[in-house]
């Protein structure tokens, strides 16, 4: 699951008549590498990279690089290169943990003459000069992101094969058919490369996580937002959990997760199998949104008890276009026990709907 964040344009409901979108339905068969790229029959699609990195000297960084596609119309356009069948949004964030600074920026583009897109023949998913370049059937993914204050160039190599979330090829978000997404992840990508902050260039290494998700309908009307965790344990296992929050404050029964053991097959987690408790909050000075930044997690079938903290409270992405609500997405630290044995890990946490409802 991942944020559908608001595509700077108020797209809701105003689609040209006649376009029929594909629904995420059970029984979907994945074909790779084709399914790593674009699915223009679905309205929304995203590619989400997050990661924790450090220098050999121990300096720690977090990053987020996200490519969104949102379709406006599949009607035959005028044939102009500037037609807008899709808008492409990208978010870029960079956390300087030691410097306790958070940088973020975003861009919105139409496909235009090579401005943004996902192109399987070139192995490229890009928005301007931010890109993810795939080679060797996904066994190598190269990221480049450039902003005014910082840039990074990273080489990502999957340690584990791709994980398909949910059951029957769909990750359900609501009770009705089609209220679901197709959702896959690379849960552990060994990462090496360089980051450059204010002109100072440093070698870094660490682990990244990549989500790819495509769908047509997702959140239902009574869902206000979600909390999403991706955790990479030191012992080689990973955990993904998301909780959908409803307008009445309760957790939605379609909240779910996936457990990826160090070796062996991934296992889905249902909403009744885990519990999330927020223990401390941070108030954003920019949006006055109040975000939980300390969590405890219980996953009953795994006997997993975790404490989640963040090394940097201010990791909120705000100040985008008016229709684009703010959200929090940042690096987290994990400590706890599994089957009574201590475990540690790092990960990323995304919290939406704390500073205005996410509408999609």
């Amino acid at each position, binding site marked *: 699951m991942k944020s559908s964040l608001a595509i700077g344009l108020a797209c809701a409901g105003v*689609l040209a008549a006649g376009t029929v979108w594909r629904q995420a339905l059970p029984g979907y068969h994945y074909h790779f590498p084709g399914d790593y790229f674009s699915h223009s029959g679905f309205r929304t699609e995203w590619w989400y990279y997050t990661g924790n990195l450090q220098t050999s000297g121990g300096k720690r960084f977090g990053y987020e690089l996200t490519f969104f596609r949102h379709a406006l119309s599949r009607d035959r356009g005028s044939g102009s290169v500037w037609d*807008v069948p899709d808008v492409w949004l990208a978010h870029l964030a960079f956390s300087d943990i030691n410097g306790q600074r958070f940088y973020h920026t975003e861009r919105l583009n139409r496909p235009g003459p090579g401005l943004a897109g996902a192109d399987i023949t070139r192995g490229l998913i890009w928005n301007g000069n931010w890109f993810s370049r795939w080679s060797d059937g996904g066994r190598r993914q190269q990221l480049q992101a450039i902003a005014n204050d910082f840039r990074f160039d990273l080489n990502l190599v999957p340690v584990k094969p791709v994980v398909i979330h949910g059951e029957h090829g769909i990750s359900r978000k609501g009770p009705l058919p089609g209220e679901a997404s197709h959702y896959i992840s690379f849960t552990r990508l060994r990462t090496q490369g360089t980051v450059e902050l204010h002109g100072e260039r440093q070698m870094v290494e660490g682990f990244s996580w990549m989500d790819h998700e495509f769908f047509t309908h997702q959140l239902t009307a009574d869902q206000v937002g979600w909390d999403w965790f991706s955790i990479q344990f030191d012992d080689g296992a990973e955990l993904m959990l998301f909780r959908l929050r409803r307008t009445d404050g309760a957790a939605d029964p379609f909240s779910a997760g996936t457990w990826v053991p160090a070796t062996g097959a991934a296992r889905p987690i249902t909403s009744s199998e885990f519990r999330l408790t927020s223990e401390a909050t941070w108030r954003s000075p920019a949006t006055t949104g109040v975000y939980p930044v300390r969590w405890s997690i219980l996953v009953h079938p795994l006997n997993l008890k975790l404490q989640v903290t963040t090394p940097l409270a201010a990791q909120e992405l705000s100040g985008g276009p008016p229709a684009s609500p703010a959200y929090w997405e940042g690096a987290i630290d994990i400590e706890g026990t599994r089957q009574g044995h201590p475990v540690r890990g790092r990960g990323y946490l995304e919290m939406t709907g704390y500073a205005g409802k996410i509408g999609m």
Partner: protein
Amino acid sequence: MASFRLLYRFVIRPMARERLRTVLTVFAVALGVGVVIAIELAGQAAAGSFHASMETLAGRADYEVTAAGGVPVEAVGRLATLAWPIRVRPRIEDYGMIAGDLRVVPVIGVDLVADGRLAAAGGEAPDAESLMAADAIWAGPDTGYHKGDTVRLILNDTERRFRVRGVLGSAAGGAFVLDLGSASRLLGRKSTVDRILIESPASESVLRAVLPPGCELARFGARTEENRRMLAAFRWNLRVLSYIALVVGAFLIYNTLSVSVVRRRPEIGIVRAMGATRRAVLGAVLSEAAMLGLAGGAAGLLLGRVMAEGAVRLVAATVDSLYVSSRPAPIEVTAAIVAWAMAIGIGAALVSALTPAWEAAQVPPTEAMARGRREYQARVRRWRNLGLGAACGLAAWLAARQAPVGGRPLFGYLAALLLIATGVLAIPALISSLASVSAGCLRRIGAEALLAGRSLAGSLRRTSVLVGALSTAVAMTVAVAIMVGSFRQTVLDWMDDRLKADLYLRPAAPASADRHPTIRAELADRVAKLEGVAAIDRFRAYEINYQGMPATLAGGDSRVASRFGRRSFLGVSNPVPIFRALEHPGTAVVSEPFANKHNVHPGDRLRLPMGARIVSLKVLGVFYDYANERGYIIVDRRTLLRYLPDPASSNIAVYLKPGVDLEAGRRQVEGALAGARVQVLSNRRLRQEAIRIFDRTFAITYALEAVAILVAVTGVASALVALVIDRRRELGLLRFLGGSRPQVARMIYYEAGLLGLLANGVGLLLGMALSMVLIFVINRQSFGWTIRFHWPVAVLLGVLTLIYMATVLAAVYPARIATRLRPIEVVHEE
């Protein structure tokens, strides 16, 4: 303290006493300064205007990319994916005309998806529906349109209805904004944009590496700079013209001070005898001048600001039709302008006061004791002056033969100044010879005329200054009238030669020197197939940049041109072989202004950006052209289409078959164009319109001349008042001796009439010489046009009569003063 008393005695008191003359002098200076300031302000506003119109929403940028015929869209993607921090903003830039009130407005296509800043400034982001809708438009706050309004815009050859989806922030000014998608469709930019703005710390070479060779990359603002450069010559000439009024004003200060120094000689003698130094006297006279200058400068500043309102419209019209699309920026009175007004006011006053002040300082203390008054006119050394004048004339002749300095005809201006000096220096000799020759003639008219003539010749100095001022103004007016008249006739002859087609088609959207709206190819095809049409010549023009200067690249059908049309080439009697050769790719002909500006000759090769490529073209000939000052490069239509494949036309010349009636032909053509907003002009209409634009273009020069004349006539009035006051005793005596009031008045009128006649005569001669300098030196060096000399007889007669009448009318008030003198009182004064 002593010096202040001196100042008070000599300067302030007399100024206050002779209020009328002081006011007139100040007014003359104010007019001179006012004109200079008005032209400066108007020029600034006009030069600032490219900024105002096309830089709408440009925001901050480091670079801009342009190309002849448009920048290929692929360049946008390549720039946007460069591995540098970069923001790339492609723009489609054009103009449209509001169908209701025919107002011309910038219509700008920007990327409304990427430009969140813009959307936010509008308060409302464009949504999916409005991005797709064909009728969505956003309005700048100065357009006067509101959200939900309908606006009908004529774009190229089509009128379209739009619904205003939002009003943008103040940066959008008076422009209408479209998304790139609709802009590319509606304005016919299929695969190009007009400009790419880039915000990036990357170096030029990094950016250039991903651009096609035909694209031009420049620091942002360079294009505005180019336009400014192109306008520089025009502004220079306008500026020089505006200083004429100031020079005439300076003559008047000189006159005022000379008279007042002479009249105060006894007083000066007394203060010298009482111990005042020469320097103190010099200082006092200069202070008087400075005060006149200061007052004139301050009044001139206000006057200039007022006159600038009118001037800016005239200047902007000229800029628009000759150079570049513009909408005048607001007039701004800066501190520099204020300082400049004061500086030229005081400066002109001080310079013209130098001689009178020096003369005042030379008054010996003994003069106070001496009896009687030395007539200052006796001091004029007319023959020495004549000699000096001859030397100036020779120098003028030499200066006129010099090459331009840095593209500016500095020696041409020098020649003009020297010519004026020649005229002014020759005037005393001329007057005294004329006086003796004409005495018999004047006597026959009457005693009043004879007295008037003698009085003028008697006060030779004063008469010379007056005639000098007036004839300078007359000369400049005559010169400009001859130049413009010759230019006009040349253009008329050229149009006779050039415009051979029966009908001309052009899109209803407004064209100007740098914007070329188009007619769709289908329409042209339909017209070409009409029964009554023998041939059509499709002409397509593009704005290009040739070696840092804007120029126009165009394609025409050489075959049609050689069969039907005409173009006269420099030094070539039969143009047909040139048109034949022009059918070969890689050849071009250029217009005379282009050839002069870039020093291009037949046989040279031009390297020209066309689309993505750089093309080498051989110059076959240079043709006469007066249509625009930027200069034309013309190639065959097929050559043009090879590099810039858009088949639309900027305008179309239609040749009817022999025997087809003009009106019948026009009806056929209009039928074929049904629904499109295309104007069909007959040959005659086109000519009329061209000459109307020509006249509008030169309106500003006429206005400047009018002011110079006004200054000079003011001077005549003020001088005649002085003359009358000065000669109170003489006039009183005349009346005492039995002269009637009407007789005295008549004498004053005769004096004014003689002054006017002299000034007109001298001015006409001098003006003719000046017009030669204007036409053959200044025009050629700054604009590069061949103009054939032509006497605009009617205009000249009109102007001279008007000046003459004004001069005589200027005598009305002085004559009244003269007739009101009481003879007894005046004679008793002695």
